């Protein structure tokens, strides 16, 4: 659609200034205006000399004339509201975890969360691979509980399977390296948790100055041959971590696993 010229005929100050005159007078003045404008174009000189001078004078004294005009505008039309905020905030509140919409894909069918309430501030954009649901304590936002999955296959899942099929034990250096356990975790062992073999790791993240308690497991049911790593992780600054770890461990003990083939890479 072509754009219209910036000013319509009725917007011209000359026409506005004589709005009370009769229609015929307006037409006559408009005609004169057009003729003079044409003449101006031909001669290259302004034929609105006086008027231009007036404008110039007006702008030499902006406080006098411009103020008046805009005062009128402000009086008649209130300012419009601010633009829509692009802030994105979608928060879920939890007291327990359940594998149901919109989180039906979780490895945890149910888990009673520690008291105080937990919230999930949904990130603006989703994860391309797997998922990571980061909950923070409602009462104490320094407490973090993360439920996640890699969402992808192991390059070679024999190592992970081999560790999980053994009786609970401390992981050797070779075992740690075989499944790429970060040096940030100083302890790692396997244990049974309500029917699922999990790898428990504890350590400290320097970059966040947080102590961490993490459990990793096969996101699918225990007997599944398709291994997709999943995990639950509690982290907090050292003081809060120490204070809340036992509560969190109690919460972990309430986990009922989603004992089906719940998650697989696309």
């Amino acid at each position: 659609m072509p754009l219209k010229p910036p000013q319509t005929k009725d917007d011209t100050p000359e026409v506005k200034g004589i709005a009370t005159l009769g229609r015929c007078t307006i037409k006559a003045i408009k005609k004169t205006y057009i003729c003079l404008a044409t003449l101006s174009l031909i001669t290259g000189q302004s034929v609105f000399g006086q008027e231009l001078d007036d404008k110039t004078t007006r702008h030499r004294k902006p406080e006098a004339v411009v103020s008046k005009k805009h005062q009128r505008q402000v009086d008649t039309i209130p300012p419009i509201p601010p633009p829509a905020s692009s802030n994105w905030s979608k928060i879920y509140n939890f007291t327990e975890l359940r594998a149901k919409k919109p989180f039906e894909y979780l490895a945890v069918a149910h888990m009673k969360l520690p008291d105080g309430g937990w919230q999930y501030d949904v990130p603006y954009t989703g994860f391309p691979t797997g998922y990571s649901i980061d909950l923070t304590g409602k009462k104490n936002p320094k407490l973090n509980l993360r439920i996640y999955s890699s969402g992808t296959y192991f390059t070679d899942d024999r190592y992970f399977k081999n560790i999980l099929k053994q009786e609970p034990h401390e992981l050797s250096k070779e075992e740690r390296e075989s499944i790429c356990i970060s040096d940030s975790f100083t302890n790692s062992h396997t244990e049974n948790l309500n029917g699922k073999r999990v790898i428990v790791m504890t350590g400290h993240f320097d970059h966040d100055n947080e102590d961490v308690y993490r459990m990793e497991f096969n996101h699918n049911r225990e007997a599944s041959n398709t291994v997709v790593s999943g995990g639950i992780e509690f982290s907090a600054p050292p003081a809060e971590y120490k204070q809340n770890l036992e509560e969190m461990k109690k919460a972990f003990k309430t986990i009922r696993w989603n004992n089906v083939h719940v998650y697989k890479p696309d």
Partner: protein
Amino acid sequence: MSEDFKKKDSDQKADSGQENRPEKNHDGRPESKAAREVGSIDSTIMNLIAKKRTNSSSGSLDESQDHSLEIDFGGSVESRKHRLPNEVLAQAKEPTVFKPMPMPLPKHDLPTPTPTPSLEVRRPSDALAPLADLTAPSDLTNNRAELKRLAADKIQNPNEREQFLKDIDQFETNFDKRSTKCATEKLREMADTYTQLSRLLSADSDILTKYSQCQLKEGETPWRVRVAEQIIHQAAEPFTISQGTLAVCAAAALEVREYYREPAAVARLVTDALLTGSYEATAGGTKVDLTKCPNNLIPDLFAMQFTVEKEVHGVPAHAWGNTYAGARSFASQLFEVTAINLALQPRGFRYEQPTPKEYEDRKNAANGITVDIQTKEAKPWGSSGSRMFTTTDIATAAHMISGKDERHFALAAPQLLPSECRNFNLRAIYELVNRDQKLVNVFSPTELPLALKEVEKFDQWPPIVRVDASKPPISQKNGGSHYLVLSAKSPDGNQVAFDNTWGEEKDHIGKPEVLTSQIADSMFSSGIALPSMAASYIADASSLGSQPKSWTARVNEWLDFPNKLSVGGQQLAANEYLRLHDNGMINKNDEIHKWVSAHPEDTKLELWNLLLLEWRNKYHH
């Protein structure tokens, strides 16, 4: 150039034996400089006519591609073939006439920072080329020759070199097909892309030499060469671009679109970032200093692994014992961190990628942080507030990078409830208030086909849409907000094809077969809906309904505002207005004051006027 042409090229050289002699005209006499210039103008005009004919004749476009990309030829398609020896001669003298152009694109070569009025943007694909750029054909020929010479010299690995040359050919073929620019602009775009690639290949060092992590072993391909290979590959095949494991889909979608449309601007961004560690936006002058966060500059573990060869053969990346398809290239890393920070930096934030240690600890869940530049307070990337890269930011960053009007490609569901969207006055006020958001507001799912036509009409294809990935057509379990680039649409707009930066296997490119209604429903999913802002607008919407004339007067007053502040016919600069306002010399006008504060670059209030005019035209007030 095809093998046939190369053969003809060598045959011609052998026959004529004139490689280093002055070019001769058809009489065999050496052409004077003036004669060559006249000939060049003549050739360009003829080419424009030929291009017009070619576009209007069915089936001839493919036949003419190689020719038209090389140089402007006159006459019909048949006569172009007869002109081939001229092209061959031009090729033959490349080494002697080429002058390397290692400098970045001069600013005056690009459009002015202020958005182009819509009338200028709406240029049909077969429009006659502007006659001003007469050197585009020869620049392309020379720049391509120089790039190929540098490739032969600098790319040691024969497989990489072969792929690079293949990508050059592919780029020219594909860009000619997909771009809606006019013929000369296409040549200029390709020539300028090559200039940037030559900068990379001819440079002796880059910013990565500062960092010990980036030191290469003997025989490894230098980072500059790798990035040049990645740029030309991605310019040839923009839909191969992947975002990797990070939640940067908005920036990745923008990257796909800019490679699709403006490869030279992207190439400059990536080249500047790698060679100097900083990038100055084409429009607005925002300068992003990537050295403030070396982690953004240093290739992450996926960029370390990425090669074009692996991408072509679909070889996945490996990290933390897991296999990841669709790894992100280093060129993409540089583009994305820069584009995100172009938008965040003016708001006082900096996006930082995960550090290697964070990657090691959190694996694919590592997602980076946004840091408050003043207070250093860090929050996870994607947190609420101004710390994220939104749909508006996509359009803003596109404008900053390309320097062009980019207000008609980012499609968004408005911050209104479906029932509120049915209120015409509310829509009008919503669009008036948010007129500078650079978005195409789609007020209901059924309006998406129309919006797609608008994108096309404004010559802004391909559009980007924000969808709920848990809904069809993506249907990923963990879902969430995600951005898609719509690569094609059916003539009626009811079916589309799209690129998904999650990896090529997630793409639906090619023939448009995905229902537009699916995309529309996904756009309007409650899972990603932004909170309604109707409460702020309802009073004005009501007033617009009851007093339309006063609103017309109001908008006209605003439109007249720059004229009121003109002195002797010269408009007062916007910053001058602010000075007058701050000194109490004129009364406060909230609207203009807010505008000037938010848009300091709009010194002549041109954008102010343009957007108001567009709004007035759309709503007939």
